[in-house]
């Protein structure tokens, strides 16, 4: 007999929702169907409903408990590991779709916003601009640092752009930058390659060591860049902002300016640049932010 009851409910009949003449009923217009069991007495219906509810409430309750307490009681190292790996997975997905030919929109000069300062890490001390030098490591064909001054940088082709600087906090400003394309800098001061072949920035950038580490003179702030993003045509070694030389709080005498990544990656007051095969340390990554932070 119980088998018969099963059949009664399992073979719920499919019904069209009556005739389609009633144009005021959306269900009928769209031909919605109803699925009804055989008519039974109230007691049978209640028992069958209870049986089905009990099963689904147990499954649902157990799933909710596993989900909730699984997440809640998951050791922090494991949870953090999952989230960290998700950042890295997202980075791979981003790079799959990355194209250096895609450019960030540029704005007319009268769209420039008021200056906004954020972050002083690595810039707490006064800087003597006259004695400032830039050290460059990881160059092709030499093991020691090359030391440059600001005139060496300014001797490279000058590029200007008016782009939107996006802070990871969510605000953005439009800034008029002037400086040297990092790709022009790297074409003049060639990075080493992974296989010691002759570096060729324009034609085989994939042969270059994949990372760039950039630090302030006191190593108080440090960022890591992936080679494709730093060779993007809108990544500048900037020495002017909004038509005047960089102010100390904006990173004088030289900083990174690029719409390819959040402001946390656009390091101010550069002291050293190193081309490297190792993924460089990154100041904010150590506080849980995405290493890539790319747009």
């Amino acid at each position, binding site marked *: 007999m119980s088998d018969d009851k099963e059949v009664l409910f399992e073979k*719920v*009949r499919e*019904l069209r*929702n*009556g005739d389609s003449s*009633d144009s*005021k*009923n*959306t*269900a*009928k*217009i*769209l*031909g*919605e169907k*109803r*699925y*009804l069991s*055989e*008519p*039974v007495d*109230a007691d*049978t*219906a*209640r028992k069958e*409903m209870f049986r*089905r509810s009990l*099963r*689904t*409430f147990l499954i*649902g309750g157990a*799933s*909710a408990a596993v989900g*909730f307490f699984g997440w809640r009681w998951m050791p922090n190292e494991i949870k953090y590991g*999952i*989230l960290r790996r*998700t*950042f890295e997975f997202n980075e791979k997905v*981003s790079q799959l*779709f990355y*194209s250096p030919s*895609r*450019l*960030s*929109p540029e704005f007319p000069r009268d769209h420039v916003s008021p200056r906004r300062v954020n972050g002083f890490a690595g810039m707490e001390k006064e800087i003597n601009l006259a004695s400032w030098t830039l050290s460059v490591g990881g160059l092709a064909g030499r093991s020691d640092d090359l030391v440059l001054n600001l005139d060496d940088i300014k001797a490279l082709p000058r590029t200007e752009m008016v782009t*939107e600087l*996006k*802070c990871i*906090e*969510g*605000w*953005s400003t439009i800034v008029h930058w002037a400086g040297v394309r990092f790709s022009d800098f790297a074409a003049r001061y060639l990075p080493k390659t992974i296989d010691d072949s002759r570096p060729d920035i324009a034609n085989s950038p994939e042969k270059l060591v994949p990372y760039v580490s950039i630090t302030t003179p006191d190593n108080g702030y440090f960022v890591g860049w992936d080679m494709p993003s730093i060779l993007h045509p809108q990544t500048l070694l900037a020495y002017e902002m909004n038509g005047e030389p960089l102010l100390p709080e904006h990173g004088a005498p030289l900083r990174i300016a690029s*719409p*390819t990544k959040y402001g946390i990656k656009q390091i101010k007051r550069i002291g050293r640049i190193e081309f490297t095969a190792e993924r460089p340390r990154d100041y*904010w990554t150590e*506080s*849980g932010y*995405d290493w890539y932070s*790319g*747009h």
Partner: protein
Amino acid sequence: MQKQLEKKHPLAIRWLHWINFPLLFMMIWSGLLIYWANRVYGIRIFGYELFAFFPEGFFEFLGVPFRLAEGLQLHFFFMWLFAVNGLIYVAYLAVSGEWRAVLPVPGSLKRAASVALYDAKILKKKPPQGKYNDAQRVAYTSVIFMGAGSIITGLAIYKPLQLAWLTSLLGGYQWARWMHFWLTILFVLFFLVHIVQVALAGWSNFRSMISGYEVVDAATTGDTEAARAETQG
């Protein structure tokens, strides 16, 4: 009186619905952790701020301040699950024919208004409906578009260079962020109304979202006589 069991919600819909609940919650929670770092929106009239999103006490009470990194980690993890769950839901609606129960038609808005008037006890006659009334159809379809809108505006904020065309289409980075924020507010409003309506509709209706079935009076199903004839014949 004779009763019938009506199969209201397919298994897939029930799972997708309940899985979406914690996913949407985590997206909104992590979104709040992120939003705190640049909490700039409010309701302003003639430059006078009527309401700021949100009062400092609200953030303090929920323990939101200084958790931006955590917010970003959670947001960019759960975004995948939220998007995939939503896409499966839409695909399921399309393939299973469930869309017939959910989509509105031209004229649904007017009938949705009748539903509201009936709920407010102004109209005496209950507007005709299938599984969902027209107000529900409008709401449940809107929320699908809101989900799509959140994904699209989210992508425009997440990859404003690689998807610069999309960000520009939305009026720029800050407009995309503004829309992303307001879509979230709409989600919260949807959620609140949904909770109230479910509470008003009662236990049997709520239970059907878990068990899939609801007990209905055989006499009120309308099609019963025809159905009986069908199966007996």
